[in-house]
């Protein structure tokens, strides 16, 4: 019995009127966890009931604690008929299970009903008492921290990066069960919400187990997705990067923008670290003290706080952190051995130094775009069929072996040899190859982690979904294509095999690029009826193995290298592959920065721009958009048609990207994300990336237009005009993005391409491109302008579309990476937003060109809308612009965007405050960023929204309101004066001008909303508008209840809207995730001591408005 969950229902407010006669409500609450239910008393005749219930106690397994959500249902008591449900609150109690996250959940939660939306609020108090159990963690993995953030979280230090973890669970979709025909939509939606909540809990627990097995204590870059496969079921899958994280003492937490230079304040305040406060009684740390000192930070203050956060520290500091509950609690004997001092010293033996040396010599850079769409082929027989768990444990033991034998060659046994150059190199690679998938979901890295980047690798596969879980129908299906063992095969196995196949492909692509790792890795699906496209992409890279292995943490050793290390500002651009044996033809030059290593002419990646990279000018968002019609078809024919189209789409998207990149006079893409979405009669492709000019890479050549038919005068003239327009645009863009690279004498080094001039021509006709994209010649030298041939109307259209991309209005910048290259002085204005547009195609006689135009306009107009709406924030930059396209119905195109607008200081935007960590705080001119966390009392008068447009109104409306309000609150019966905590949300991993002092846990929420009165709710727009606002509200409420004041790495993973205007109905599903955090202004040294109590303070209704 390892856990006791305690819940108290305090009060409700703003409840809806349930009894028309009295205009009041007789509300009571049911609290359910697992199969146990408690009820409060009925609080009669009130819209603001005060239950003040006793503590409801649930005694449960920690496994259940991880899987199950706490379910709070508010009902209206009815003497004569059945009680009416007002709404529900699902509370994920996972954050309470981790010692470093939240300690109590307390606050107002919106009461949510899937039909009516938010109906009032309820104040709930939740606590967990975990008992120590020697046998625990057999099935549960409490204590493993999860982060959506795709970089090392700000107040942690990565002691070790273990690698890829993945898992998926499958279930039947309640919406497709037979019972759904007789139950109400509400019951069906709730069943679905609850099931998905359960499944994500289970998934997270299973991933946690894997992490513990690998010896880690956290998952970073956790990406969880749903595949609503309809009749064939519901898949919840997740990937992430297992790490061992050490908590930095709060005093030395790195600030948001210059995390390389943490404030190395003495760790005297370490014991104030919020994670420790109030935690001890709950978690009982002393019980685990056998494996290490009970309070590591206090015991070893210097080691845990003084070294820079990401640089390796001495083994002893590692030791200190490993005494944290997570590791010491692991049941396996191997694990416990590992956390003792003896073993730790062992791996830092000389062998490690040799392997780090090896990496440097081979450094060089590549640009690549490996991509191999595949059709519905059966998975190769070589794919291992053992279970996931087994696989992981195997790789784990190999890990150990390595550590013990000091990188023996035994590690490489049985693995195919990659494009290895030297023995040393081989050794470092084997470290990664030990892992089945050397993938990392991270997109930003500690300095020195990323050695070289090869290029983007991606793989897609088209699959037919089969309903194997429904025994009644499953056997009768005839279109089963895949060679699964049998119809009754366990479905996770099948889905696992699909992904495994794709991952293998990614791995081999990376190998072809001479890389042993893949970073910025992500997976996605697009489902239409029974066809499913699985996609995976990442960036092939060579990584510094010292983060991969234990004991490699000694800074002294890793800094000694045979050759001079590549300068950090350009090292990652140097090609990783063999110059004489290139995987694809590319034009290499010596690096324009260090002049020592070779670099490619163009570099595409899926990661964020490394902080240390040297960039000229600013970056910008670059999008390639594409629509392709396809015939409607069924089953196998459909799948084949789709897989035949995919390579062409990839090719087109790539060409568009390349053209647009050249047009902006840039030479590298970061954050590349290519989405291909399938509909009944079309495929949509959208590639987004942030273009930059990397100083290390050669300047891109221009674009040259060539006509095929010569002699035609008017044609010649036409070409000349277009050429002129293109040249003008390039010149204008150079100015706009401030790209004025220092001119260097160029020396094109021997490229393996015999006749570059001839080869650099990009052929337009589709017939010439083949399935094998790697055969495509994507090289464009500086000397040769990039040639576009106009031989048909297609090409003309393309050039037009190339030129019609509207430039961003003055004062705006946009990018889809975390931060805009070239802007360094963020101020505190932050506005996160979600926008959704659905476009109905009017008639059926559409051509590919027509569709492309519509799609392009749709995206462009959306961007224009954003600029207009956010104009009051100028100068500002739209960051992490994340476009998601879908084809919800035959003639509909849906584009959903989530992004954040951030203000910056124009005057300081030019310079990179390289070595001045303090500039950030100083440059923060707006003092409006007031976190009500610090003092609830301040909230009503504080200007909590720092955007500049607010100040316009604040000046003229300085009415003596706060004073008046407080009095009214006291004098009026109904309202309790707890001002709502302001919760900021951002898709980035940080908030400018602030410092994250604590991660409170992952937010992963799934909501369904349905209506049978669509018109009355304002049509689809009104319906969705309300729903999105409600989702935001619920996220904010949960974060506030955890004691947080911000959500970072927020994303909306799913927004699936189905409408039937004729029936006046609509249904929408939204899935969001992020990390709940507490952050304080950068200028504040320490969080206010009252911080941890805020939840209670607010909740207990103390009138804070005075």
């Amino acid at each position, binding site marked *: 019995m390892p856990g006791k969950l305690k819940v108290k229902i305090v009060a409700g407010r703003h409840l809806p009127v349930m009894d028309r006669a009295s205009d009041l409500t007789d509300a009571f609450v049911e609290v359910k966890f697992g199969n146990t239910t408690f009820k409060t008393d009925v609080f009669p005749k009130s819209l603001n009931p005060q239950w003040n219930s006793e503590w409801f106690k649930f005694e449960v397994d920690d496994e259940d604690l991880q899987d199950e959500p706490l379910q709070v249902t508010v009902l209206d008591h009815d003497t004569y008929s059945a009680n009416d449900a007002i709404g529900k609150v699902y509370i994920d109690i996972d954050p309470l299970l981790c010692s470093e996250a939240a300690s109590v959940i307390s606050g107002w939660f919106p009461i949510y009903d899937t039909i009516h939306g938010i109906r009032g609020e309820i104040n709930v108090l939740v606590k967990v008492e975990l008992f120590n159990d020697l046998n625990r963690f057999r099935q549960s993995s409490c204590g493993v921290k999860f982060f959506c953030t795709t970089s090392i979280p700000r107040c942690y230090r990565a002691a070790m990066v273990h690698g890829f973890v993945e898992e998926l669970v499958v279930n039947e979709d309640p919406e497709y069960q037979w019972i*759904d025909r007789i139950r109400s939509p509400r019951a*069906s*939606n709730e069943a679905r919400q609850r099931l998905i909540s359960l499944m994500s809990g289970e998934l997270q627990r299973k991933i946690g187990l894997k992490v513990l097995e690998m010896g880690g204590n956290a998952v970073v870059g956790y990406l969880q997705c749903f595949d609503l496969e309809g009749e064939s079921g519901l898949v919840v899958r997740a990937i992430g990067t297992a790490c061992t994280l050490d908590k930095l003492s709060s005093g030395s937490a790195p600030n948001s923008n210059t995390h390389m230079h943490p404030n190395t304040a003495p760790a005297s305040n370490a014991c104030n670290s919020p994670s420790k406060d109030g935690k001890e009684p709950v978690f009982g740390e002393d019980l685990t003290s056998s494996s290490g000192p009970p309070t590591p930070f206090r015991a070893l203050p210097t080691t845990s706080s003084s070294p820079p956060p990401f640089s390796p520290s001495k083994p002893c500091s590692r030791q200190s952190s490993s005494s944290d509950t997570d590791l010491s609690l692991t049941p396996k004997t191997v694990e416990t051995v590992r956390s003792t001092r003896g073993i730790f010293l062992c791996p830092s033996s000389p062998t490690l130094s040799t392997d780090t040396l090896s990496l440097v010599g081979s450094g060089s850079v590549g640009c690549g775009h490996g991509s191999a769409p595949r059709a519905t082929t059966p998975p190769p027989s070589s794919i291992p069929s053992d279970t996931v768990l087994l696989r992981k444990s195997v790789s784990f033991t190999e890990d150990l072996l390595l550590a013990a034998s000091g990188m023996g060659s035994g590690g490489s046994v049985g693995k195919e040899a990659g494009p290895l150059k030297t023995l040393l190199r081989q050794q470092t690679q084997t470290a990664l190859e030990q892992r089945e998938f050397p993938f990392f979901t991270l997109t930003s890295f500690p300095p020195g982690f990323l050695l070289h980047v090869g290029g983007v690798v991606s793989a897609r596969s088209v699959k037919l979904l089969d309903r194997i879980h429904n025994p009644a129908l499953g056997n009768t299906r005839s279109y089963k294509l895949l060679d699964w063992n049998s119809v009754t095969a366990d479905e996770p196995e099948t889905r696992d095999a699909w992904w495994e196949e794709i991952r293998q492909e990614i791995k081999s692509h990376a190998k072809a690029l001479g890389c042993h790792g893949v970073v910025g890795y992500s997976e996605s699906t697009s489902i239409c009826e029974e066809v499913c496209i699985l996609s995976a992409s990442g960036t092939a890279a060579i990584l510094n193995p010292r983060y991969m292995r234990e004991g490699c943490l000694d800074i002294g050793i890793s800094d000694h290298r045979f050759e001079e290390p590549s300068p950090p500002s350009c090292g990652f651009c140097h090609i990783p592959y063999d110059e004489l044996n290139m995987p694809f033809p590319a034009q290499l030059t010596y690096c324009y920065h260090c002049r020592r290593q070779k670099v490619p002419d163009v570099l595409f990646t899926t990661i964020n721009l490394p902080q240390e990279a040297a960039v000229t000018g600013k970056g910008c968002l670059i999008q390639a958009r594409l629509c392709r019609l396809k015939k409607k078809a069924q089953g196998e024919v459909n799948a084949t048609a789709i897989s035949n189209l995919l390579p062409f789409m990839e090719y087109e998207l790539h060409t568009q990207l390349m053209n647009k990149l050249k047009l902006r006079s840039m030479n590298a893409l970061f954050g590349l994300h290519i989405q291909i979405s399938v509909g009944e009669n079309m495929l949509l492709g959208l590639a987004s990336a942030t273009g930059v000019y990397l100083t290390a890479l050669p300047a891109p050549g221009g674009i040259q237009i060539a006509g095929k038919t010569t002699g035609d005068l008017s044609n010649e003239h036409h070409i000349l005009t277009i050429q002129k327009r293109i040249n003008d645009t390039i010149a204008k863009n150079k100015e706009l993005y401030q790209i004025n690279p220092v001119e260097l004498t160029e020396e094109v080094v021997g490229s393996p391409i015999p006749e570059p001039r001839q080869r650099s021509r990009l052929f337009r006709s589709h017939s010439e491109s083949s399935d094998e994209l790697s055969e495509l010649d994507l090289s464009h030298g500086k000397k040769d302008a990039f040639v576009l041939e106009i031989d048909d109307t297609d090409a003309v259209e393309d050039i037009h579309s190339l030129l019609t991309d509207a430039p961003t209005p003055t004062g705006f910048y946009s990018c889809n990476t975390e931060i805009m290259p070239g802007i360094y002085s963020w101020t505190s204005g932050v506005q996160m*937003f979600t926008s959704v*547009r659905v476009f109905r195609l009017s008639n059926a006689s559409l051509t590919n060109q027509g569709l492309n135009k519509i799609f392009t306009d749709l995206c462009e107009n959306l961007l224009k809308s954003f600029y207009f709406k956010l104009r009051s924030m100028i100068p500002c930059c739209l960051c992490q612009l994340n476009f998601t396209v879908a084809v919800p119905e035959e003639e509909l195109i849906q584009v959903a965007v989530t992004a954040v607008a951030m203000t910056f200081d124009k005057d300081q935007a030019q310079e990179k405050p390289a070595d001045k960590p303090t500039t950030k705080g100083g440059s923060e001119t707006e003092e409006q960023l007031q976190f009500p966390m610090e003092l609830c009392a301040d909230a009503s008068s504080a200007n909590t*929204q720092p955007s500049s447009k607010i100040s316009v109104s604040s000046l003229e409306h300085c009415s003596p*309101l706060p004073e008046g309000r407080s009095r009214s609150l006291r004098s009026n019966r109904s309202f309790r004066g707890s*001002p709502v905590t302001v919760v900021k949300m951002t898709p980035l991993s940080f908030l400018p001008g602030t410092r994250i002092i604590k991660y409170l846990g992952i937010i992963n929420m799934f909501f369904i909303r349905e209506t049978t009165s669509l018109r009355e709710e304002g049509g*689809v727009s009104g319906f969705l508008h309300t729903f999105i606002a409600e989702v935001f509200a619920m996220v904010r409420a949960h974060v506030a209840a955890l004691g947080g004041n911000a959500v970072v790495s927020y994303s909306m993973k799913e927004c699936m809207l*189905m409408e039937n205007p004729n029936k006046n109905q609509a249904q929408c599903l939204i899935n969001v995730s992020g990390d709940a955090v507490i952050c304080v202004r950068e200028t504040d040294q320490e969080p206010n001591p009252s911080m941890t109590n805020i939840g209670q303070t607010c909740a207990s209704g103390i009138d804070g408005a005075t």
Partner: protein
Amino acid sequence: MSASATFTAVTPLSSELRVKLENYRNLVLETGWDNTQNKMAVELDVFVGNTTIMDEEVYQLWLDGYTVNDAVKVRMEGGVMEECEASADVLLSDTMDQYRTFQMCERLLHSPSKLANQLLFQIPPNRQAMLIERYYAFDDAFVREVLGKKLSKGTKKDLDDIGAKTGVTLKSCRRQFDNFKRVFKVVEELKGPLVENIRHHFLLSDKLGRDYAAIVFFANHRFETGKRKLQYLTFQDFAFCAGQLISNWTVGAVDNMVEDMDVDLDKEFLQELKELKVLITDKDLLDQHKSLVCTALRGKTKAFNEMEANFKNLSRGLVNIAAKLTNTKDVRDFFIDLVEKFIEPCRSDRWTAADMRLYLTHYNNSAHILDTFKHQAVWDRYMVVIKSCIFKMYHD
């Protein structure tokens, strides 16, 4: 994905939904916000910020009852398009979004204290204050029309006429009228000072709170304000007078913990006012009063002769008003009486505002010197209001 089969039959509309439906129909009818008419064929278009984005200009247009299309036109003429290289489509989409947001907020604005602790919209406090203040702001022209009228359904039916007369859109008229009614209903049941109650319950500024107090006060006593002779008076004139009446003649002026203390006139006081009749019924007293006033005024004003000649008439007028105030009907006619019995005669004699001041000051003070006149306290309580009201009302 095919739509699911879980929809059930449409349930009968709840009242809440009916309101929504009406709102929506208005929006559609007024704007042509209909898929068939929209050439963009944008089926759905929403933008939701974590901090709710609200443009003050659009908010004002919404409050003023502009349709989406008209609002877009106004904005285009306002030149907002050049600001950000926007197109008409962008403007339309933005306006629609904002209108939707305001509509969703409207429910909260009906009880402003909810706005501060609701969770649906994250709105900074100063923006909340702006939203409330503007929502409860009204057009002087409109309020002038309904001032003193019963806030009933009957009056609501006449709003289209009032709208046509004042140039305020019907939608805006309805909002303003409903605001008056809502404030009236809430403060009706509350104890304590009227202005404070309004301000605290509706989180309004001091100025707006006072204006609403005036409106409530006028509506409660149904003061006649619509007669032609009163047309020259503005709402602000009346609001000022209401303020005077509230702070001097109501129950609250003596006891501040009674229900309706600021709404009901002090009945005892009104009874006592009858005693003032002695000033005009007692011949000696009247003559004495006149001579005292005339002595004080002599040589100080050009209108002295008219003052002297009219003294008895004017004094009778004022005292008669006082004596009649026990009748509800005469209370209603308070302002028309003031104008007919006092302001008009003076105006026809071309008194200046300074003359008026001088006259009333001495008229008031001289009564204290009358040794047989015993009702000094009542007299002062009466005259302080009369004086300031007449000062305020004596203009063209």
